[in-house]
């Protein structure tokens, strides 16, 4: 029996010491605290983007229905589906069905990889149009003449940081899937927490970056 399980069964109340006040292991609590701090990083970036947008006279709304909105919606659906497969992996691991858990994690990684590939293609479209961190794409400067050149900086910084999180998550899940017979259930659950957090951040990046910049002419 692990120490945590023993401590959890002690009759001591929280005020007597010796109990885990949150009834979760220290690793899981650590991941939760990391998620809170990372959520603050992302919210600071989104607030900075909103600040720049509010303080500007004009802001480009360049995303046409095809390819940008179709691509980003498909990416959202894949990320949501991968979150579902991850929760199924955690469930299989809780019931000690290790082979099923590994298969569900592989499906999750596949969803993450599809997200990464689609997003790189989407980046490729914009870079090809001439968008750079501090320069608008060619025609945009004529359509939105009063807008500052910050569109690229905000777009690449926020989606790039999110892509980096997805990439790290895929690597992390790969390690967990390979070592599934040596891990404990809590470790699988922790990797699931991280993956769901990546999904959660996209739920705010997608409407703020993509849906608020829809090109009605497209």
């Amino acid at each position: 029996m692990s120490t945590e399980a023993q401590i959890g069964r002690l009759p001591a109340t929280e005020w007597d010491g010796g109990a885990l006040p949150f009834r979760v292991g220290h690793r899981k609590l650590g991941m939760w605290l990391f998620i809170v701090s990372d959520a603050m990083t992302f919210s600071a970036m989104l607030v900075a983007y909103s600040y720049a947008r509010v303080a500007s006279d004009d802001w480009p709304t360049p995303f046409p229905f095809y390819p940008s909105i179709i691509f980003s919606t498909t990416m959202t659906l894949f990320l949501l589906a991968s979150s579902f497969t991850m929760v199924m992996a955690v469930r299989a691991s809780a019931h000690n069905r290790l082979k099923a858990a590994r298969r569900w994690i592989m499906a999750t990684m596949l969803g993450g990889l599809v997200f990464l590939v689609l997003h790189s293609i989407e980046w490729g479209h914009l870079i090809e149009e001439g968008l750079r961190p501090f320069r608008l794409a060619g025609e945009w400067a004529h359509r939105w003449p009063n807008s500052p050149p910050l569109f690229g900086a905000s777009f690449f910084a926020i989606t790039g940081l999110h892509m980096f999180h997805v990439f790290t998550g895929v690597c992390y899940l790969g390690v967990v899937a390979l070592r599934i017979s040596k891990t404990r259930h809590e470790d699988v659950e922790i990797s699931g927490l991280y993956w769901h957090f990546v999904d959660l951040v996209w739920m705010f990046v997608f409407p703020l970056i993509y849906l608020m910049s829809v090109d009605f002419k497209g």
Partner: protein
Amino acid sequence: MANESIRDLMRKSDLVLMAVCLALAAGFLLLAGKNAADAGKFFSIDSLFFTAVCLLLALTFVAVPALALRSRGIHPFGVPDEVPPARAAEHVHFEGGMRLFLNVLLGLLGLTVIEVFLAYIHVPLHIMLTLLIGLSLIKAAMIVAYFMHLRFERMSLVLTLIPTLAVCICLLFIVFPDSFRTQRLRAVKPSAVEAAGEAGAPASHE
């Protein structure tokens, strides 16, 4: 212990063969990485082809040691049929079935489709922003509650994490009055100058 048993099972010549194969596999992996990095446009047919060939060759050379290990009954990443004792002793608390999670997933997908639909309706910006952020908050709550399992955790954990985050994010909004002020501080708007220069008509924003 495991190292000793592996050494017993393999002869020296096998080890040399494996080392050569692993070195070649690593070399091809490096080549694939270099090719991917050098390719200006990665998703062109040529660079994808050469990267894929390098990866395939690396896989071929990894296959030799992997098969040799397997034939000797060593499965470094295999899953045992019985549950490992450390895992079996763990006290696991998990609620929720496939049906619940499927319902949550369908709800999230539905809300996403509604958001995309809303983005194409002409409404004032602040109403659209409120609607989108409101729906996103609902989605986030669903993910945190069911997928991240916070609903089934202790209340003390929820009360530690969520208010902390909410207060910190609200503190960030302290900058927004400043951003509205920056816009009003400008004496003349560039759009007004342009419109006045072109037609002399009163400038209308947008």
